[in-house]
């Protein structure tokens, strides 16, 4: 089992060349594998950072020059010199506002982490402070007092993950059963086809507005977290189509031999669905779920941004509106974090997909 997990997650293939080089087995071949699989990708990332750095420096200089020129044109030579000195002294207030360099982004990342530590500290202190009061309130049957201060970046990531998983589960719970039902009947499939094809390409923004209209009415007198509801339902509705289409496809294209075996064995409808149709379409269903999760993560940011629900999306939007000196750098930190989490989620789904696909290759 342990070996299988190592193999499926790709950890084995990651480690084996290193181990082999260490052992001195097939050194040349393994060095080649290392070069191809790790050194070159790392080099390409390095190259990317270099291009970024050069581009950012160019943009910085251009912005600085135009700032100085503007001061000169509007307020004369003395003002221009002042602005120039201010920029090159590195003072925060007069830095040109443009694409931040990799170094700045790294700084912003560290400051976000530090910020997280401070906020966690505050939270702990707060929890200690209200511990007794909360115990009392619990006895009286009242809700506990919770920390309502500003969330840290890491908290935002947690919220986003929570939303995306809620949306993903919703998508799975809607799409898989419907997919199975329409997969089993070609009449239902053709009758639903237009609807599905029309709804599938609808933009996340429109789904959000639609969900907003419905949720607003339905929950007008509830004190549940409306923005969370709206965003996770929208995420679910946007992302469920891949699973729906794949499930119905998988169910409707069960191997003809399997269908014949089921007929010869006279399996009942229930047995046929659970013993034959579902297992044989599991690989397709999980391919669909993998796409669904990546779509969910992609649209989540846009939806959070619009729905004003906490999370990475609103973090990005707030930073953009904020316009502080390191806002741009923070946005780019968020961009990389979003990318890396998306990559991680896709990897997890790939492992599950591989486990579900009776030893066939998965890209």
């Amino acid at each position, binding site marked *: 089992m342990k070996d299988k997990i190592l193999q499926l997650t790709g950890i084995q293939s990651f480690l084996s060349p290193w181990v082999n080089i260490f052992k001195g087995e097939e050194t040349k071949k393994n060095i080649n594998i290392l070069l191809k699989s790790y050194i070159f990708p790392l080099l390409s990332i390095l190259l990317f950072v270099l291009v970024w750095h050069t581009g950012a420096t160019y943009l910085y200089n251009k912005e600085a020059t135009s700032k100085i020129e503007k001061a000169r044109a509007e307020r004369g030579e003395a003002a221009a010199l002042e602005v120039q000195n201010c920029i090159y002294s590195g003072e925060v207030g007069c830095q040109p506002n443009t694409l931040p360099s990799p170094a700045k982004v790294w700084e912003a990342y560290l400051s976000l982490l530090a910020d997280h530590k401070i906020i966690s500290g505050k939270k702990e202190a707060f929890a200690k402070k209200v511990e007794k009061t909360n115990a009392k309130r619990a006895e009286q049957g009242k809700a506990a007092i919770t920390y309502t201060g500003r969330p840290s970046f890491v908290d935002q990531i947690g919220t986003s993950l929570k939303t995306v998983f809620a949306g993903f589960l919703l998508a799975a719970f809607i799409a898989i059963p419907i997919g199975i039902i329409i997969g089993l009947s070609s009449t239902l499939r053709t009758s639903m086809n237009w609807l599905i094809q029309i709804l599938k390409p609808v933009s996340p923004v429109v789904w959000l507005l639609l969900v907003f209209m419905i949720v607003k009415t339905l929950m007008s007198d509830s004190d549940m977290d409306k923005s969370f509801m709206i965003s996770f339902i929208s995420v679910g509705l946007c992302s469920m189509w891949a699973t729906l289409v794949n499930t119905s496809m998988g169910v409707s294209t069960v191997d003809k031999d399997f269908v014949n*075996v089921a*007929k*010869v*064995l006279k399996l009942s409808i229930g047995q046929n669905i659970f013993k034959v149709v579902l*297992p044989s379409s*599991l690989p397709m269903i999980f391919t669909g779920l993998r796409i669904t999760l990546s779509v969910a993560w992609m649209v989540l940011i846009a939806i959070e941004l619009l729905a004003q629900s906490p999370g990475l999306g609103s973090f990005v939007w707030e930073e953009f509106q904020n316009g502080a000196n390191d806002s741009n750098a923070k946005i780019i930190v968020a961009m990389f974090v979003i990318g890396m989490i998306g990559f991680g989620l896709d990897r997890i789904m790939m492992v599950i997909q591989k486990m579900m696909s009776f030893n066939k290759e998965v890209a």
Partner: protein
Amino acid sequence: MNQYNINPIVGTTKSIINPQKEIVEDTRPDMLVCKDIAKIYPTPKGDYTVLSDLQLTVKKGEFISVIGHSGCGKSTLLTMIAGLNDISKGHVFVDGEEVREAGPDRAVVFQSPSLFPWMTALQNVMIGVKQVFPHATKKQKQDICKYYLDKVGLGNDFHKRASELSQGMQQRVGIARAFALKPKVLLLDEPFGMLDSLTRGELQDVLLEVWQKEKITAIMITHDVDESIFLADRVIMMTSGPFAKIGDELKIPFERPRNRVDILEHPDYYQYRGYLMDFLNH
């Protein structure tokens, strides 16, 4: 052991010239009767008749093989008997009852093993056994499955996933699954067509060995002349389609249990083979 220990083999060369002449009346009851059956596929250019007016009677416990050129409708005939394909005209009776749909009394071994790859070998056999013996205890069902898997040489692979087995091993499970259903008729649709010749030989032996014990009425579709002689009591030759029907038939009176070496060395063997080849080439 003397490897040339030849069993006494019945049958004379005369039977070749006129197969019907020397045949002793078969007193066994009819197990399968195909009466005037036809298969017609409607096409935009009019009906396409694959089989027409086909008559076939198979006695209980008889092993017949059906040969013919590819596309002549052999497999169509088999799937019609199995109930997997609609019968356009005529009737098929199994043990006196007319065939209307597929069922486990007519077990099929398909050309591709058609095992459920997500199940183990045992589970693949079990799913059928559960259908046929719903009232048996779990232990009894397991014993049936294990008995047949053991018989086809998979005694050590009960819990291997079907996807982990080789093509030949998978087809062994397919054979075990079919026999475990205790069918009235065993239908074999070119079961060894996708295997290499060595594995094919092995599986023919396995099939014959299990069949020898059960004596289930069997119909095997094949395009391999040697296979049809080695396995069958009677070889049915089908004419090429469209409007295919039974062109000729040949009794193979070699005594059972059969042994590959004995059959190949039997003086009549090449005459039977020649007779079949002659039919196929004309």
